[in-house]
């Protein structure tokens, strides 16, 4: 498995080729982005199960639904922003309403597409998918988890949305760590504040926890790799234990992880909560790190929000 820095999309490509060898119902469709989302390895090994659909995302999703209805297990592959906005109606009707066994795999979630600018940065994809019944949403935090999420998605029956990052990011989970859809993982224990993070913000949250530890603040780090169905129990238990919560996502705080956690806490255990995420705005061109800093999506932003939320306890 992986260590050091590794892009989640690479791990997705590896997992797809591996599961493809085990199950010949696995088929892959792409919309002219074979290399960008790393499905080339599958294409090389199983060309007869690889379908190039051209630049037409809605058609790709609808076609995949038809293949699923007839018994295949299709993975569609393109950028997060194109899939969830452009093909939203196809996802809603052809995939979700039909409860078709389609795995909607996406890369370039969040700001990591960098210099391409706002049109290509997916800030709202998870929120859009959360609104659709029957959808399972997986946002792995590193390459090891991306690999496991891909295998788990292939093995479950029903629509799944998978969000992967583009750029190499720190591998923070182990090859042998468990991965169960719908079951959040505690990566670090603490009782002063619970930081609930998804995707590439999980490594940032771990870094924040180290800095906070130097000041004697013990942060619990929750890796919320499944946004739907949400592990409400872990959120409530963590809030109960720590008394305050910070969420962290490379995504708008509206309707994404922050919104989901707020809904759970408001209904079950009102708890001081602060959110790190995109604040209802579009992005812009820049190096990924520059954008993360400008839009307050770094470990130091998490540290800052923790210090603020601690005062609300």
């Amino acid at each position, binding site marked *: 498995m992986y260590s050091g820095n590794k892009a989640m999309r690479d791990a997705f490509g590896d997992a797809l080729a591996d599961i493809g060898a085990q199950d010949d119902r696995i088929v892959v469709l792409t919309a002219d982005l074979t290399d960008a989302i790393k499905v080339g390895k599958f294409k090389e090994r199983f060309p007869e199960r690889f379908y190039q659909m051209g630049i*037409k995302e809605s058609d790709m*999703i609808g076609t995949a639904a038809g293949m699923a209805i007839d*018994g295949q297990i299709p993975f569609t592959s393109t950028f997060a922003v194109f899939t969830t906005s452009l093909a939203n109606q196809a996802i809603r009707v*052809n995939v979700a*309403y039909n409860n078709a066994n389609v795995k909607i795999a996406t890369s370039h979630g969040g700001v990591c597409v960098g210099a391409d600018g706002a049109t290509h940065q997916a800030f709202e994809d998870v929120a859009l998918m959360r609104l659709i019944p029957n959808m399972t949403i997986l946002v792995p935090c590193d390459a090891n988890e991306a690999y496991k999420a891909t295998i788990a998605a292939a093995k479950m029956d029903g629509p799944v949305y998978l969000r992967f990052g583009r750029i190499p990011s720190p591998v923070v989970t182990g090859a042998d760590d468990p991965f169960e859809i719908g079951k959040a993982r505690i990566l670090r224990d603490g009782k002063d504040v619970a930081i609930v993070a998804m995707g590439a913000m999980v490594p940032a949250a771990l870094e924040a926890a180290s800095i906070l530890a130097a000041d004697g603040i013990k942060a619990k780090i929750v890796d919320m790799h499944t946004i739907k169905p949400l592990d409400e129990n872990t959120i409530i238990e963590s809030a109960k234990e720590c008394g305050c919560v910070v969420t962290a996502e490379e995504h708008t705080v509206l309707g994404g992880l922050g919104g989901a956690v707020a809904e759970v806490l408001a209904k079950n255990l009102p708890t001081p909560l602060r959110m790190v995420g995109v604040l209802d705005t579009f992005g812009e061109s820049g190096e990924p790190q520059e954008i993360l800093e400008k839009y307050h999506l770094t470990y130091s932003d998490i540290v800052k929000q923790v210090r603020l939320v601690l005062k609300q306890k």
Partner: protein
Amino acid sequence: MKQKRMQGNADLQKLTDLAQQLRRDTIRMIHHAGSGHIGGALGLADYMAALYGWAMQYDDHDPTDPDRDRIVLSNGHTCAVWYAALARSGLIPLEELATHRRMGSRLQGHPARKAMPEYIETSSGPLGQGFPVANGIALSLRKRVSQGRVYVILGDGELQEGQVWEAFMTSAHYKLDTICAFINYNNIQIDGKVEDIMGIAPLADKIKAFGWHVVEIDGHDTASIVAALSEAASTKGKPTAIIGNTIMAKGVPSMEGDAKWHGNTPNDAETEAALEAVGTNNRFKDFPIANRA
């Protein structure tokens, strides 16, 4: 009962009788439901009769037979005539037609896969969105080396959706000769005539240019429909589109070609007159409608 794919010569009288009854059923279903889309459904009766009465392979004892033929009703609002065809083919009970558009019914206002997955391959209604699913099914059938054919039915107004042309491209690119598309070309959509709202002509040339084999017929002439379906089945290496020149609400002269009958519901007197105009035959009886409390 099992119907084999395109067995022998089609019994044209049987098919026209079936189409007549599908029209009666459609009118009675929509009147009883109090809403629905009567015009397009009536216009499709002849084609639907030819599919279920002759062309399609299906088995009521094994409805999910992997080699069955499939229908994708991309213009899902015309579903009343489809439900009637399912009932007249013995696939669902006749009495069920009286439940159309009611809470809990399998015969939803637009086709819902979850209600009847053995017959409804995909939910449809949002125009343009059924067709890609038909391509996906055809690709999967090819992968499984099945002989099953996929009949996708489209409205003419539906062809204004760009996604339809994406799907035309896909079927041609993958040489899906098991796909047969029928375009219900009645030149009517909700707001008026298709040619006035957003023209789609010259339609046959456009679809041909997309790499399809195209057959243009009178969509109400059973012999022509049967011939076109045969031609589609024997055309290899490319998909076939049948452009059916039809009249919206065909069979009820007082409604024919009038855009208001896209979505209006006939009242009691209009229903009586419509049934009178359609007429009856000895082969069928109307489905029962229980008195409502």
